């Protein structure tokens, strides 16, 4: 699978596609640039579309475009509106077209392929939309951008507050939060950046990133949180594997001079993950 490298822009609260490519040269998008990029790429779309009457012919041509361009187009197609270019293409054509497949290779999220309101060929009045809940809010974000956003929101915890957890099973987030609320403390998922990342849900069939990328993001965010911590750290743990990321967190603690020590609490001594 390709590295995810499609551009994005941010709205006030929720990032949306604008179809902008991200070739690594464009700075982290911000609110001010949103409309600019949107306008720019909408114009680009029109520029591609107007001279060609046959949408399918254009689609075939698009399939031959460089992947950087396809990334842009792919973003558009997975964004809100496909617009005049491919408007009217049939559902099956869109789902199976070389264009969509190539756009997918370029990183666009079209695998869900749930297009609605696709009507007769070359209709000029109907628009094509993708089911809104099929578009992941971070579609188009790079790993670096996700990390930057989490860090920007904040991964700091007050002194003596960081509460780590590991080996608590799929309810570990909930269990550790309950512990923190009852006994004081702040887990990674309770920091602003961590809460945002948790809410973004990078895992599952709709995720815009690969499994290893999602793991990388959580690992980096976790280590950044430890790096930002100070004072005494606590950890609530269940059955911890020697390969667990928790062990990487412990190593990070050892290299953080602001941390005075760690208190491990076996929250559920007989707890066996997954049972």
């Amino acid at each position, binding site marked *: *699978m390709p590295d995810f490298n499609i551009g994005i822009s941010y709205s006030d609260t929720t990032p949306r596609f604008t179809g902008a490519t991200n070739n690594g040269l464009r700075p982290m998008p911000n609110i001010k640039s949103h409309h600019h990029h949107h306008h720019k790429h909408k114009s680009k779309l029109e520029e591609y579309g107007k001279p060609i009457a046959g949408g399918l012919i254009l689609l075939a041509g698009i399939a031959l475009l460089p992947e950087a361009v396809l990334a842009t187009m792919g973003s558009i197609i997975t964004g809100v509106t496909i617009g005049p270019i491919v408007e009217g293409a049939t559902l099956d054509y869109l789902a199976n077209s070389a264009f969509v497949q190539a756009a997918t290779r370029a990183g666009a*999220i079209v*695998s869900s392929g749930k297009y609605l309101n696709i009507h007769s060929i070359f209709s000029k009045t109907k628009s094509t939309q993708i089911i809104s809940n099929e578009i992941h809010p971070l579609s188009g974000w790079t790993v670096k951008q996700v990390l930057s956003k989490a860090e920007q929101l904040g991964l700091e915890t007050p002194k003596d507050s960081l509460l780590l957890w590991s080996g608590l*099973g799929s309810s570990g987030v909930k269990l550790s939060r309950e512990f923190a609320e009852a006994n004081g403390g702040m887990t990674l998922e309770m920091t602003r950046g961590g809460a945002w990342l948790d809410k973004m849900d990078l895992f599952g*069939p709709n995720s815009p990133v690969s499994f290893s990328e999602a793991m990388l993001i959580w690992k980096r965010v976790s280590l950044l949180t430890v790096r930002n911590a100070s004072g005494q750290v606590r950890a609530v743990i269940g059955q911890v*594997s020697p390969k667990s990321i928790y062990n990487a967190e412990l190593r990070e603690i050892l290299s953080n001079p602001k941390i005075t020590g760690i208190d491990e609490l076996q929250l559920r001594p007989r707890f066996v993950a*997954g049972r």
Partner: protein
Amino acid sequence: MFKWLNKQGVQSDKGYIVQVTGRFTIEYREKNKVIEVYVEPGILDNGRFCTIIEPHAFHKWDDGTPINKDRQMEILKNFTDAMEFQNIGVVVHGE
């Protein structure tokens, strides 16, 4: 041979599907039989990511049907192959 179903799901030409369904869950599917596997993220000695699973992960299907030892080993191998295809190692906790 595997084909990508999405960025976190693959299907084998043998017919089974391995799909990440959550931060700590991966689904193993054969036809209409499903096992939801609890996983914890980990790191191998070589720095590669891995999923840590429990030794009992494949003892039974989600509908309660027990799985014999041979089939457990086969499913574990299938699961491991699918994860390796995604460049993720598999570690059975305690082994």
